[in-house]
């Protein structure tokens, strides 16, 4: 049974000038217990907007247009931000943000920030017990627990900070974790350490189901079971991680793979190809395929016909001509 | 423009700004509609009548005329002090914050010196030493020169935060000199701050003038809201229950300062999210 269901979710936000931007359109997917879904796309494709929608956290100027999100059958829509924060976040759906710095209150020690999260959700435990449980949990993370817990965020390295954020987000063993570019601000070595920690938590059963959002496809190949590619607010391709990466079907996924670089011997000759042009403006209504303007295989009718998700072999693809 | 639009969405700003504009309008065009007279038109502390709705002062002069003149003086003093204090403070703060190092330390020391010395006491001492020819302009200048520390500190922090930004490095790589960097690449970014500081400096200027006039060290060449209160105090109007001698002037001062604080607070709300970004 799916524990997380997203059903034709569309989201929009208002700009400062009152313009309506349809950032996410018609996104649907189900997740089984234990699944790790990677969502990849370039900046502006709507993946960050989607994160808030997936948590049911609608703070103006972000609004749901239509659709539904359910965790264990319970809808997350039509809730106030206070309700979401009190009853959904941390326990049901937890988020790991990109900037650990913004997520941690700089004036407080890590242990106090973490203790607050625990105290808000677990009643009838005193401070000492909370600190003990914190220490127990942080011991799993492979850091100097005493140092980290008793430090202010600024005294930690970027890697320690991000690992602390992950530790705090998963304190209450959430059913679902949504990681929004958790390693994008880190260098490759620290990134690996952080991903290792996430794998560690998965193995120890702290949480088992995760949506991992990033613009780095190669990273997803190692992290996710399934990958969904987003373009201009829509999912254009979804399938098993290896298949999407090694045998892309949607022209956009193909172009994305063509633009990748790698330091493998003999690869120096392979020139990465850029995708010219830019995604369409999501303030305007779009009739045809959103990638048509930049697609090397575009046919005249592509600009007219709205593309729907089709099943092609082992994949879902939003392209009438994908094989 | 966008900022103005956002500001207009804040009811606090709309109330504050309209209130302030109203007082400004009254001060500027009021005399065109109301015949101001400094002549004796009644007896000492005559009660309000239909013709002179706020009654007479100690010398039998019309209070509405006095208030209109006083309002003009107070606004003038506030603006003068505000411009001087903001200019000095901004210059010292922006340069110190940007330069850092020893120059910043010295400027900081000077600023702190002025913070430690109670500026109001200095104000009183200087005012008292000008026993003759103490004009409104002089009072404004003195207030401006003793209250700039606040702007200097606020601006310095902003300037120091900006100096390590990439666009400053790039400006240096463009060959821009320090003056150009300060004027073009730092000042616009902190302009909203400077403006907020200016508003506060104006209101503190108005309050300082009122306070110093009230204790009898105010301008000798004109009527200000402070001198009206001083006269009321000196003649014991307060004890005699002659409300029109002190309540209208107090209300006007309170309204102006309240309006300025509303503007300042609402601007902070609009500017800060942007700065945090």
């Amino acid at each position, binding site marked *: 049974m799916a524990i997380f269901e997203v059903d034709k979710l569309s989201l929009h936000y208002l700009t400062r000038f009152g313009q309506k931007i349809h950032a996410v359109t018609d996104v649907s997917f189900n997740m089984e217990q234990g699944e790790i879904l990677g969502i990849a796309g370039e*900046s502006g494709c709507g993946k960050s907007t989607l994160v808030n929608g997936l948590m049911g956290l609608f703070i103006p100027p972000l609004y749901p247009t239509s659709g539904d999100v359910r965790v264990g059958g319970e809808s997350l829509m039509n809730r106030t931000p206070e309700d979401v924060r009190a009853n959904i976040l941390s326990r049901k759906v937890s988020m790991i943000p990109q900037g650990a710095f913004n997520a941690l209150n700089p004036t407080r020690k890590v242990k106090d920030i973490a203790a607050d999260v625990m105290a808000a959700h677990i009643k009838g435990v005193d401070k000492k017990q909370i600190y003990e449980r914190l220490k127990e949990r942080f011991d799993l993370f492979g850091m100097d627990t005493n140092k980290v817990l008793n430090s202010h965020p600024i005294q930690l390295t970027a890697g320690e900070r991000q690992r602390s954020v992950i530790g705090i987000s998963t304190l209450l063993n959430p059913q679902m974790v949504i990681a929004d570019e958790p390693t994008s601000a880190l260098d490759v070595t620290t990134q690996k350490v952080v991903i290792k920690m996430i794998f560690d938590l998965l193995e120890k059963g702290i949480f088992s189901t995760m949506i991992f959002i990033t613009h780095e496809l190669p990273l997803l190949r190692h992290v996710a079971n399934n990958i969904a590619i987003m373009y201009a607010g829509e999912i254009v391709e979804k399938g098993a991680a290896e298949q999407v990466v090694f045998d892309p079907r949607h022209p956009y996924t193909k172009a994305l793979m063509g633009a990748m670089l790698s330091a493998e011997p003999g690869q120096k000759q392979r020139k990465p190809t850029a995708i010219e042009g830019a995604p369409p403006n999501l303030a305007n209504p779009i009739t045809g395929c959103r990638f048509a303007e930049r697609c090397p295989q575009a046919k005249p009718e592509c600009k007219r016909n709205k593309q729907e998700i089709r099943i092609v072999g082992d994949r879902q693809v939003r392209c009438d001509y994908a094989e | 423009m966008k900022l103005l639009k956002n500001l207009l969405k804040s009811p606090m700003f709309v109330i504050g700004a309209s209130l302030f504009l109203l007082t400004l309008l009254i001060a500027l065009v009021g005399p065109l509609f109301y015949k101001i007279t400094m002549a004796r038109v009644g007896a000492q502390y005559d009660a309000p009548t239909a013709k002179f709705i706020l009654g007479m002062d100690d010398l039998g002069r019309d209070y509405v005329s006095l208030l209109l003149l006083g309002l003009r003086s107070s606004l003038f003093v506030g603006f003068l002090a505000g411009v001087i204090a903001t200019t000095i403070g901004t210059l010292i703060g922006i340069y110190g914050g940007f330069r850092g190092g020893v120059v910043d330390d010295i400027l900081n020391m000077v600023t702190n010196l002025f913070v430690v010395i109670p500026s109001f006491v200095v104000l009183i001492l200087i005012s008292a030493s000008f026993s003759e020819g103490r004009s409104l302009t002089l009072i404004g200048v003195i207030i401006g020169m003793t209250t700039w520390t606040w702007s200097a500190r606020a601006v310095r922090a902003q300037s120091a935060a900006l100096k390590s930004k990439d666009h400053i490095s790039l400006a240096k*790589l463009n060959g821009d000199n320090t003056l150009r960097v300060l004027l073009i690449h730092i000042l616009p970014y902190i302009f909203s701050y400077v403006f907020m500081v200016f508003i506060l400096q104006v209101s503190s200027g108005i309050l300082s003038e009122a306070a110093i006039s009230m204790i009898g060290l105010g301008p000798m060449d004109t009527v200000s809201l402070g001198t009206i209160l001083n006269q009321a105090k000196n003649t014991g109007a307060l004890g005699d229950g002659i409300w029109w001698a002190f309540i209208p002037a107090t209300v006007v001062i309170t309204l102006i300062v309240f309006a300025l604080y509303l503007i300042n607070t609402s601007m902070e709300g609009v500017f800060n999210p942007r700065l945090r970004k």
Partner: protein
Amino acid sequence: MRNDVLFEAKNSVCTFGHGKKLVRAVDDVSFDIKDGEIVSLVGGSGCGKSVLAKMMLGLHHPNTGEFTYKGAPITDYAVHWREVQAVFQDPFSCFNQFFTIRSQLKAAFGIYREKPSNSEMEERVDQALLAVNVKPSELEGKYPFELSGGQMQRMLLARIFVLKPKVLIADEPTSMVDACVRANILDYLMKLKEELSMTIIFITHDIGLAYYVSDRLFIMHKGKIVEQGAPDDVTLRPKSEHTIQLLEDIPEIHKEWIKR
């Protein structure tokens, strides 16, 4: 000294702070960079690569050791910056948001003692924009916040096309842009090298990217250059453990990364 050497460092050290808080950001590095080379400084955050780049720009100075450009220490900045220019990581923070991009591209001429005539400046800005595939008309009256990240990064490169310096210090110019744009930016860097025979110092934490663009790699760790050499040598036959670490840490599509 050979006359084709631009930068030369001999046991250069650059430190910050003092006492217990002393940080040796650049620690005893020695190298030379020749005219026309593309050299990449590679390492994780805090390895000193950005500080070394700023030393090349003359924004930081060595505490001890020699650090020269064309055989002399960097003293006159205006002169230095006529030849050595930079692009930075975050294109949005590089432009003043209160002025049009075009006026800021023109402001780059401020580095010359005598500015060219106005028409020549306009002409050179137009050409620079065309060099990065932007129609000058599209940019008319545009402010920095009206463009996308990829476009802004191209504007930083356009500034380089305007100035045509001898040396370009590129500090992580692709770390904040998407893969598609990244390929684009690299194309322009190649164009700068080929058409203007520019020397490029490329700073990155991505050894894959460095491998792709450069003639030589400097691998940095804790302020020291732990390995330097041709890209194939360094990536195929790495000698330093830090190089091996960097190579292993990149999540490559075709190679095992972390076992789950």
